């Protein structure tokens, strides 16, 4: 043996006697999202065979069985025809790309911890292993070359586009200090403006713990009107149709079914149809759902309530409604008591006040709603209205009906459309029945955390101004207008997965507000992706996509109850492998974090010594003085707050947390029909001598007659009972002879994710532009063909877009999908060039604003060769900028439908994507609508700002509801 061999032998021989070393590298995993294409390790063993899982309802039958999820091997599809095995650990999570919370399974490479794909989670009770295009596209978002990977702080002026990378610690210290300073001065200086909540209680608990009235949701541009309609009936603001078991399915438009809740709802609608259910859809647009309906009613927007009441009158006249249900559960006695003093109420045969008298009154009251009237107002053939009535009548108590956005959020008074729709459920007795329509509180489960902070004692007038005491909920889309009126300023403004300038109407008002560092002193954008509003933030903080965060969700996808656990899948996979991860940003791409941990750490910095009484709510229940970890938080929830979960976990030898980490979901109950009938010992409502749970309304019953509306300044018949309200786009308001049209701007495509689609090239490849739908007769009148440019003038400005000529839209109406028309102000570094236009902003300093496209979508070169394959240029037009705000005087909803004052062929010099707006007109329209309100100051019956029983996302203490005395400046109102 020579010297070299001898030395090596000595050394390596000594090594053999040692315990294995921790390899200094090799404990680290790859994490290339946003910087490189992922690599996957070759598995050393043959793949397992895909197990066949038999399901009685015919759903997909092959999935990796859960017992193999920890170590799953399959051939690499992309390596075909080579047989390359890959070895994964399968980690369940919850999709974040709409609100329906479908289950996903992340295939995480066991060696590199890169994510290979997201597929459906067969254990998930809501989605049942299926996903729409948005679910698998999570992978596209994760590895998006344009990701924001690190916390960024503004350098220079807002909107200048200059950023510097900062540490999370610096972020926490600075924002925490500013929040503390604000909280020490007042309780309405911090605003959390949420777009996609993606969870059910966690952040609200944080805001409550801060002791501020800080929650500001996007609800008023989304579901406010429908919520109001359902809540005035039942005290619960959201429906939950049992489509799979229905005999009739009645949809006002199909926003959720075609778009938002597409996956869980659509699969159950198909099941219902396969079982013989009939589908009725009201929509002026031939949507995918409408095209598959048994009866399509292309109603003129705003006429839906009349059609629904014609069906109701048909049931009433023929006494084919569920008389027993109505007698037991409707507040008909209140109706009879109040009717004589109700303004505009016709003379009714009230008699002795018996139920039979009520029935006679009902017939008289709704007698004017004939099929003929409905057909005329809706501009649809009467035969279709009759057919719809026949189907509803035959369905009995198996009528699954739904409205969420569409007509209810489109029209002034749209909340009454929801109210009239639920009237059919009430009449047919299909409330909470099998195949009927439940309410979301029955089909959604929100567990309690380990400690709940008390309600705060504050009222934020910028969120809940006195003009809209019945709004559902915060008037968030009016924030710029309220700021412009000098009603207040914001110390710390969080936008959370939200792009208010782009999403809301009147975006240039938002632009002015976001630029104003006096009005919005600190803007923190918590976002997974670049967006137009984040460009005007002071901090841009990268937050995770579906596989990069902890959240707990539950949605009313069907008649059962379940919870779904969103998880940072790389972190979970690494922890399965025995690796220690303290914060999720250590496992996520770059330094992408999650709100759940961020809020805890931020709250700790906000109140480091506990002097504000905030810190204690974020401390571990088992490690006094230490901030709580996600494992601790969710362990407590799953151990103590989810019925049945501990037992189910124990049956598998798991802790509840381990169970949820393994399966990602838990079904609490498969069915939950008619819970209002449950007998209770306390509370509830007396029904024929038995106390039953009833409904969370003041009467405990379903309120056909709303004393709340009567008492809060809306006593007329057309408000207190289901009744049509005249829309701002009623045919009489649209002068079609003069060239006016109705712009329907709020339908969506099922493959888009609000403003986050622009970070998913796969989705944009499916749909990337939003042309103006126009009927052939209107196109002929204007002289345009498909592909021509049209200029659409609204109340406050105009835009230019291409036209798509089709029979699939009602004459007199033009329609554009939202979610498209994204733009960026910088050629690169502000979003994918393939999914947004490079644009230029201009303003004249006097309210005149313009947006012009410099270049459309284009291919761009990154580590991902897919970005070089962009074949489209037309990425849509940002129409919302030209929409005036239309706050409904009761629900507070922004009524999305717009009066198109002129629609004409674009002239020379007018280019695709041009947008121009005069914000002086914006304020004028805002004031017109504000003048329609009946304020709490003038109409509150009890000195409160809002009925105590009505929901708010976060309710303050009762004392905070008291209206301020006139001498007290309301914007500075701090109670307690």
């Amino acid at each position: 043996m020579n010297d070299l061999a001898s030395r090596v032998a000595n050394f390596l021989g000594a090594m053999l006697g040692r315990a294995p070393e921790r390899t200094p590298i090799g404990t680290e995993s790859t994490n290339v999202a946003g910087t490189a294409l992922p690599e996957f390790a070759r598995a050393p063993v043959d793949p397992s065979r895909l197990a066949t899982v038999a399901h009685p309802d015919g759903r997909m039958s092959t999935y990796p069985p859960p017992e193999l999820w920890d170590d799953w091997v399959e051939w690499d599809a992309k390596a075909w025809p080579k047989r390359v095995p890959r070895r994964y650990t399968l980690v369940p999570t919850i999709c974040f790309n709409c609100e329906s919370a479908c289950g996903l399974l992340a295939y995480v490479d066991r060696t590199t911890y890169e994510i290979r794909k997201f597929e459906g989670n067969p254990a998930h009770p809501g989605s049942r292993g299926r996903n729409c295009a948005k679910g698998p596209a999570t992978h596209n978002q994760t590895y998006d070359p344009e990701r924001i990977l690190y916390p960024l702080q503004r350098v220079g002026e807002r909107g200048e586009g200059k950023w510097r990378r900062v540490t999370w610690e610096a972020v926490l210290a600075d924002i925490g200090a500013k929040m503390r300073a604000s909280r020490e001065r007042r309780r309405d200086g911090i605003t959390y403006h949420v777009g996609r909540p993606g969870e059910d209680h966690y952040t609200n608990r944080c805001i409550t713990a801060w002791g501020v009235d800080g929650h500001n949701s996007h609800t008023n541009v989304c579901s406010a009107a429908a919520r109001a309609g359902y809540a005035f009936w039942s005290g619960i603001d959201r429906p939950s149709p049992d489509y799979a078991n229905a005999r009739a399915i009645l949809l006002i438009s199909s926003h959720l079914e075609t778009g938002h809740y597409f996956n869980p709802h659509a699969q159950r609608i198909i099941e219902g149809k396969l079982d013989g259910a009939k589908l009725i859809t009201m929509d002026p647009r031939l949507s995918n759902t409408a095209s598959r309906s048994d009866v399509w009613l292309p109603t003129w927007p705003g006429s839906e309530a009349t059609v629904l009441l014609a069906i109701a009158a048909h049931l009433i006249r023929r006494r084919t409604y569920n008389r027993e249900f109505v007698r037991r559960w409707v507040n008909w006695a209140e109706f009879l008591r109040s009717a004589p003093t109700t303004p505009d109420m016709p003379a009714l045969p009230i008699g002795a006040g018996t139920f039979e008298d009520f029935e006679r009154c009902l017939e008289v009251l709704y007698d004017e709603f004939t099929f003929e009237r409905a057909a005329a107002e809706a501009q649809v053939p009467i035969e279709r209205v009759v057919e719809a009535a026949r189907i509803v009548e035959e369905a009995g108590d198996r009528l699954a009906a739904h409205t969420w956005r569409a007509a209810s959020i489109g029209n002034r008074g749209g909340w009454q459309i929801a109210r009239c729709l639920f009237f059919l459920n009430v009449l047919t007795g299909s409330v909470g029945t099998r195949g009927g329509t439940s309410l979301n509180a029955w089909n959604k489960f929100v567990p309690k955390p380990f400690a709940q902070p008390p309600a705060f004692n504050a009222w934020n007038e910028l969120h809940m101004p006195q003009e809209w005491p019945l709004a559902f909920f915060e008037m968030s889309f009016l924030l710029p207008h309220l700021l412009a009126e000098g009603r207040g300023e914001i110390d710390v403004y969080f936008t959370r997965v939200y792009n208010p300038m782009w999403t809301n109407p009147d975006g240039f008002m938002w632009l002015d507000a976001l630029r104003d560092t006096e009005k919005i002193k600190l803007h923190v954008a918590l976002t997974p992706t670049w967006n137009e509003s984040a460009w005007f933030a002071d901090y841009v903080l990268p937050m995770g996509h579906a596989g990069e965060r902890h959240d707990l969700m539950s949605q009313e996808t069907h008649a059962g109850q379940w919870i779904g656990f969103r998880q940072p899948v790389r972190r979970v996979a690494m922890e399965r492998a025995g690796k220690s991860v303290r914060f999720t940003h250590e496992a996520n791409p770059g330094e992408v974090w999650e709100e759940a941990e961020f809020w805890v750490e931020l709250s700790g910095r906000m109140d480091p010594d506990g002097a504000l009484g905030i810190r204690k709510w974020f401390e571990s229940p088992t490690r006094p003085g230490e901030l709580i970890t996600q494992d601790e938080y969710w362990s407590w929830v799953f151990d103590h707050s989810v019925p049945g979960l501990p037992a189910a976990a124990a049956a598998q030898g798991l802790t509840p947390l381990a169970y949820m980490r393994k399966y990602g979901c838990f079904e609490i109950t498969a069915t939950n029909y008619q819970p209002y009938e449950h007998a209770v010992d306390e509370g509830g409502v007396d029904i024929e001598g038995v106390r039953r749970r009833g409904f969370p309304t003041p009467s405990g019953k379903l309120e056909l007659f709303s004393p709340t509306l009567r008492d809060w300044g809306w006593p007329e018949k057309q408000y207190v009972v289901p009744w049509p309200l005249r829309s701002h786009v009623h045919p009489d308001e649209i002068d079609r002879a003069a060239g006016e049209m109705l712009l329907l701007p709020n339908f969506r495509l099922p493959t888009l994710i609000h403003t986050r689609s622009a970070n998913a090239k796969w989705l944009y490849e499916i749909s990337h532009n939003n042309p103006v739908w126009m009927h052939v007769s209107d196109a002929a009148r204007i002289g345009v063909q498909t592909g021509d440019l049209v200029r659409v003038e609204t109340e406050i400005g105009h835009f230019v877009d291409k036209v798509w000529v089709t029979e699939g839209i009602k004459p007199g109406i033009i329609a554009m999908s939202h979610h498209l028309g994204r733009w960026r102000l910088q050629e690169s570094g502000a979003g994918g060039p393939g999914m947004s236009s490079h644009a230029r902003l201009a303003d004249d300093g006097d309210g005149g604003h313009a947006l012009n496209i410099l270049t459309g979508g284009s291919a761009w070169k990154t580590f991902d060769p897919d970005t070089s394959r962009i074949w489209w240029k037309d990425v849509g037009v940002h129409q919302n900028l030209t929409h005036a705000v239309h706050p409904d005087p009761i629900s507070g909803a922004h009524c999305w439908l717009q009066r198109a004052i002129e629609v004409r062929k674009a002239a020379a010099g007018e280019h695709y994507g041009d947008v121009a707006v005069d914000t002086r007109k914006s304020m004028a329209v805002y004031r017109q609508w504000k003048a329609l309100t009946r304020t709490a100051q003038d109409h509150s019956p009890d000195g409160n700002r809002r009925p105590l029983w009505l929901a708010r996302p976060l309710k303050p203490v009762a004392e905070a509801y008291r209206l301020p005395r006139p001498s007290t400046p309301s914007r500075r109102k701090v109670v307690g």
Partner: protein
Amino acid sequence: MTAVPDATMAIARARGYAVLSELLLGGGVTLDPRAVAAIDPQATDLDELATQYVAAFDLGVPPYASTFLEPDGIVGGSITCAIADAIGTDGQRPATDEVAACHLGVLLGHAARLCGSGRDGDAADFLRRFVLPWLPAYTAAIEQLPAPFWTAVVHLTLDVVVDQCGAESPVHDDATSAPVDPLADPGAGLREVASFLASAARCGLYLTEPECAAIGRALDLPRGFGPRRARLETLLRSAAEYGSFVALCDALDAVATSRTARLGAIARDRGGCIDARDTAARIAAMRRVLATLRSGAQHVTTDPSTAAAESGTPP
């Protein structure tokens, strides 16, 4: 070790590389006494070893492949990326919070992992590609530093690497391009010469700070401050201005001569498993450059009246 079964050898190598990697990555901050003892049972003063670590690696010769393989010696360039890519392809991400992927400790750590997973051949390929081309020159350089323990660590590293890689066939010590003559450009000045001398990839050796300091002290020349290249340039200018340029060239040539000899000894000591001809060729090229400079300087010194007309300033 040839009689040892392959699997056993793989385990031994995995553990050996892991120990060396851990020492090289953490030696300045945390030292595992067991790992130290595996190299030198007599080395028990861990504080002293940590001090040596700073002298050897932080202030001495950076243990990065890029320092020896990149023409400009900058870490984070194509060599670093190539190594990170190679490690990433194998499913790992280098722990680069503190050091770059081309750090010797990272490279050995990856080799440890490959050997530990039974991929001895892949480990050898990796080492042959990214370690062996520069480790002999590195070893010769670090010998100049007052860090005997760490010099032993590097020597042992070279032993183990050569033992694994050299068994199949002799390996070349440098795969970079042909030597470059900085004087080929008529416009080249002392700055370009300093850049050449500062580049281990070009001149074949890494001029350590102690070596330069010793030369400066011996010739009574200031070296200034700043990056190594700037200090070399200052040394050259000082020598030119103070009439010591010929002596400086001689001193540098002596370093080159000595280093060539050490390189040869290191190769011989590994039983011919290292082919250091490429490095030797570069050092030889460096010596030619020094000779040219020396000649020019002699000419200037001999006849200053004509020097200005012919060459203006010292080359």
